[in-house]
C-alpha cells in the first residue's frame, strides 16, 4: 500500500494528467486536454444537465437510462436522451472516430456511468484528500496538513451553484459542505499552535458556511487565546452564545462554556 506522501503525489499528478477536468464547486467548468471548454460548445442546457447528473451520481453503479430520464425530463423520450448524450460525447471527444466506443461516458447495456479513471472531478478529489487527511491526522500531521490544504484549495464554493433548486444535486451539495467544514476544522486544529492566525481564518471560513458550527467557535477562542487576544476570545464566545440562542434556542455546550470559564480565569 502506498504511503500518504505517495498518495498525495498521485492525486496531484492525476490533475495534470487527466484528459478531462471538471470543476463543480463554485462554478461549472470543464477543461479538455488542459483547455477550458467554451460554454457555447454545449448547445442545449440539457446536455450540461445530463453530464452534471452523471457527476452527481458517479458513486453509484451505472445509471439506468430510464432513471436518468425520469429525473431530468418532464416528458422526455429516447430521442431527447440520445441528443443530450451525443452532445456530451461531442464536447468531450470531438475527434472520436465514428463507430468507436466513447471513452468518458461508458455504456453498459442501457446504463451509463463516467469513467473516473480518466476524468478529474474536483468534488471527487476533494473527498480523497480529506480521507487521506483523516487517515494521517494524529499519526503523520505533515501529510494530514498537506491533504487538508489541497482539499481547501479545491473548494471554490457551493456544489453546482446554478442547480441549487434541482433535487438530484442536493445530496452531493450537502456532502460537499460537510466535507469542507470537516477539513477547515481539522486543519485549524493542527495549525492552532504553530499558526494561530491561520487557524482563526480557517474557523472563520467554516462559520461563513455554517454560523452554528460550535467546534469552529471553540477553536477560534483557542486561536485568539494563543495570540494573547483574550478580549476577542471572549467576544467569540458571546457571538457563539448569541447565534445558538437565535437559531436553536440553546446554550453553548459545556465544553465551550468550560473553555470560556478558563479564559475568564486567566489574569
Amino acid at each position: 500500500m502506498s504511503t500518504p506522501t505517495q498518495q498525495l503525489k498521485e492525486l496531484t499528478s492525476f490533475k495534470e494528467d487527466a484528459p478531462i477536468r471538471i470543476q463543480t464547486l463554485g462554478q461549472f467548468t470543464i477543461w479538455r486536454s488542459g483547455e477550458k471548454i467554451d460554454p457555447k460548445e454545449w448547445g442545449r442546457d440539457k446536455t450540461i444537465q445530463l453530464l452534471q447528473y452523471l457527476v452527481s451520481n458517479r458513486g453509484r453503479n451505472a445509471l439506468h437510462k430510464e432513471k436518468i430520464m425520469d429525473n431530468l425530463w418532464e416528458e422526455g423520450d429516447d430521442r431527447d436522451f440520445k441528443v443530450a448524450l451525443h452532445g456530451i460525447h461531442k464536447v468531450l471527444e470531438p475527434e472520436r472516430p465514428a463507430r468507436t466506443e466513447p471513452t468518458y461516458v461508458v455504456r453498459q447495456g442501457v446504463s451509463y456511468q463516467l469513467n473516473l479513471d480518466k476524468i478529474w472531478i474536483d468534488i471527487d478529489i476533494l473527498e480523497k484528500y480529506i480521507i487521506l487527511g483523516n487517515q494521517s491526522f494524529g499519526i503523520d500531521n505533515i501529510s494530514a496538513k498537506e491533504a487538508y490544504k489541497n482539499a481547501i484549495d479545491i473548494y471554490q464554493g457551493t456544489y453546482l451553484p446554478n442547480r441549487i433548486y434541482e433535487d438530484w444535486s442536493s445530496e452531493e451539495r450537502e456532502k460537499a459542505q460537510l466535507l469542507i467544514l470537516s477539513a477547515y476544522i481539522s486543519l485549524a486544529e493542527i495549525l492552532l499552535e504553530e499558526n494561530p492566525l491561520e487557524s482563526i481564518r480557517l474557523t472563520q471560513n467554516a462559520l461563513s458556511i455554517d454560523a452554528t458550527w460550535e467546534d469552529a467557535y471553540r477553536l477560534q477562542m483557542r486561536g485568539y487565546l494563543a495570540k494573547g487576544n483574550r478580549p476577542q476570545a471572549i467576544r467569540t464566545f458571546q457571538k457563539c452564545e448569541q447565534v445558538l440562542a437565535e437559531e436553536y434556542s440553546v446554550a453553548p455546550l459545556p465544553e465551550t462554556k468550560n473553555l470560556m470559564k478558563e479564559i475568564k480565569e486567566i489574569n
Partner: protein
Amino acid sequence: MSKKQDQTASFMVRFNQNIFEEDGESKVQWRGKISHVQEGDEQNFTDFNDALVFMQQKLANLTKEATKHKTTEQQEGILQKSLYMWKTMKEVGPKVLMETIKDPKKQLSQFQDQIQEQISSIGGEISEKVQIDEWRNASRSDYKKVKKSIAELSQQIELLSEKIDNIGKKK
C-alpha cells in the same frame, strides 16, 4: 396537467449530534437543519416537530398552488385531507426517531404499521400504492432512513392530491 416539478417538494435534513456530561449525567442534544430544495430556504431546529411543521407548510403551499383554480370550499377540503396524513407523521415521527436509534429495524417496522393504518383509513387504493416496505432496505444510516421516509410521504401527498383532483373533476 401540472408539471411534475410543480408537484414535487424535496427536503434535505441534517442532524448534528452532541453528547456531553452535565450535572453528573450524560446528555444528548440534536441540532438539525432542514432545507426545502425547490425554494432554497431552510430552518434550524432542535425539536423534530419544527422540521415537520416546516415540511407541512411547504406541502400545504404546494397543494394550495395546485388547487388555486378550485372553489375555496374544494380547496379547503383537499388541504384538510392533505394535512391529515401530516398529523399522523407529526404524532409518530419524533417517537420513531428516538426509538429508531435504539433498534432501527424493529422501530421502522412499527412505524410502517402505524402509518399504514392511518393511510388505510383514508382509502384502500392509496394505501396499496405506499411502498413502505422499501424503507426497510435503507442501510447507510438512520438519517438516510428518515430522509427516504420523508421522500416517500411527499410522493404520497402528490398522489393524494391527484386523486382528489380527479374526484373533483368527475363531479
